């Protein structure tokens, strides 16, 4: 029991990690970036290329990839988001669907279709706490997830953070405050692309690296964000961990074959009970 719960927390923190970038974009532009997972995958391949073909060590490839991810964020912004800045949210979401196809297709062509193994952050022996076996690497991932979550949470209280939220709520009014909407948007795309890369590189040892490595994580991260509350940064963590645990418990005690069905039904039910997610604040427009 405790083993599956701990495992659930660890898997859940992967979902949460992947969800943070999603939430960031959503908070700035109300857009759900369907391509978040593919961006993560693409960046992870870049890291892999640095390590195997350029021969760089992990601790150099990692930050280098983060920089590349930032560039990818700028490219996505310049080529897709900016030209669409006057379009409605749905159009942008469809464009990110298109981006999935482009990134997935290109990744296959550039990096090949084989599944590869990707190194862990740290390689230490499993530790055993109260009969639960734990990988130190997983613990580190959980910590990193929470650290990123907390930094984002506090970042959003600063002037720049408030500016990001202001842009999401009213673009013209934000401009009237002297906020450069372009700069704010490109910044969030850069950060979220970097988050994607981080997520990808930390998740790859678990899912292994290939063009599909993020598909399941991405779907679940989306669920995690919504379940926890799409407009908070604490939400994805809560949602992710909950989904991770839920799936394992349903699998263990009800049915492994039907666990996805159960998990989704439970998500729907939880949402109906708390329509803004577990941590989300309800905001109703006043008339």
């Amino acid at each position, binding site marked *: 029991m405790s083993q599956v719960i701990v495992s659930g927390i660890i898997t859940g923190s992967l979902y949460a990690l992947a969800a943070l970038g999603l939430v960031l974009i959503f908070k700035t532009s109300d857009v759900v970036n369907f391509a978040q997972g593919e961006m993560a995958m693409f960046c992870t391949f870049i890291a892999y290329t640095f390590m195997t073909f350029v021969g760089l060590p992990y601790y150099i490839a990692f930050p280098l990839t983060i920089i590349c991810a930032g560039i990818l964020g700028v490219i996505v912004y310049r080529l897709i988001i900016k030209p669409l800045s006057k379009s409605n949210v749905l159009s942008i979401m469809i464009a990110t669907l298109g981006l999935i196809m482009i990134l997935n297709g290109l990744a296959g062509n550039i990096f090949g279709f084989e599944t590869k193994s990707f190194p862990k952050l740290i390689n230490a022996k499993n530790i055993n706490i109260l009969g639960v076996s734990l990988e130190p690497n997983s613990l580190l991932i959980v910590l990193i997830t929470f650290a990123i979550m907390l930094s984002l949470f506090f970042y959003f209280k600063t002037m720049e953070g408030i500016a990001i939220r*202001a842009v999401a*709520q*009213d673009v*013209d*009014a934000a*401009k*009237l*405050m*002297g*906020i450069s909407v372009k700069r704010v948007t490109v910044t969030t795309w850069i950060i979220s692309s970097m988050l994607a890369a981080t997520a990808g590189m930390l998740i790859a040892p678990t899912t292994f690296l290939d063009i599909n490595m993020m598909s399941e994580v991405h779907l679940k991260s989306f669920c995690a964000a919504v379940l926890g509350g799409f407009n908070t940064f604490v939400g994805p963590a809560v949602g992710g961990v909950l989904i991770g645990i839920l799936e394992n418990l349903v699998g263990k005690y009800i049915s492994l074959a039907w666990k996805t069905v159960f998990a989704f039904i439970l998500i729907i039910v939880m949402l109906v009970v708390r329509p803004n997610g577990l941590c989300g604040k309800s905001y109703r427009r006043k008339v």
Partner: protein
Amino acid sequence: MLIIKNLKVNYGYVNALKGVDIDIKGGQIVSILGSNGAGKTSLLKAVSGLVEDKSGTILFDGQDITNMSTEKIVSLGISHCPEGRRIFPQLTVEENLKIGAYVLRNKKVNLQEEFERVYAFFPKLKERRRQVAGTLSGGEQQMLAIGRALMSKPKLLMLDEPSLGLAPIIVNEIFKIIKQINSEGVTVLLIEQNANGALKISDYSYVLELGQVVSEGDSKKLLNDEGIRKSYLGA
């Protein structure tokens, strides 16, 4: 300080402004009157760079700002309190005020002092400073919008119908505040439906009709103009 020459604004086929000339001297309060749809809001939006299809020239402190981006214009010291309040509904009152001072973010400003200055004008806002702005009453939102516009310490303050939805006692207050701010050296461009109040506090006024300036002059003079009285003052 602000010189507008032959300004035209179009929305598709609608010609909202058809060549407007306006000249605002530093330190003045200038008001603009006009009935619904006359193009008053369009004028302010053109100045702050929020309309796309415009022509003519707009000079601010001698600098051509016609084709500048809104954020640049604003950082030059123009503050625009827009029509329809446009507060950020999901930010708290205090966050709304804070973002009002965004252009001062790199200067050493004591935000707390600035908050207190606004709260002194509108004590109601202080009571509600942790409330999410979207749930404020209409008038409270209006106060917030004005307060937010004051936070950036502008050289030119443009107010689009600030008295809209405010109780008479606050309307009087607003005019007093405008006067006070003006006396601190801020130039004010004021759009008002409350023509009486606007004419009383302003130095100079323009009357817009169907996108054109139909008359202008010293506010005191206009206040006694028969035509103006009939169309705007309900007399």
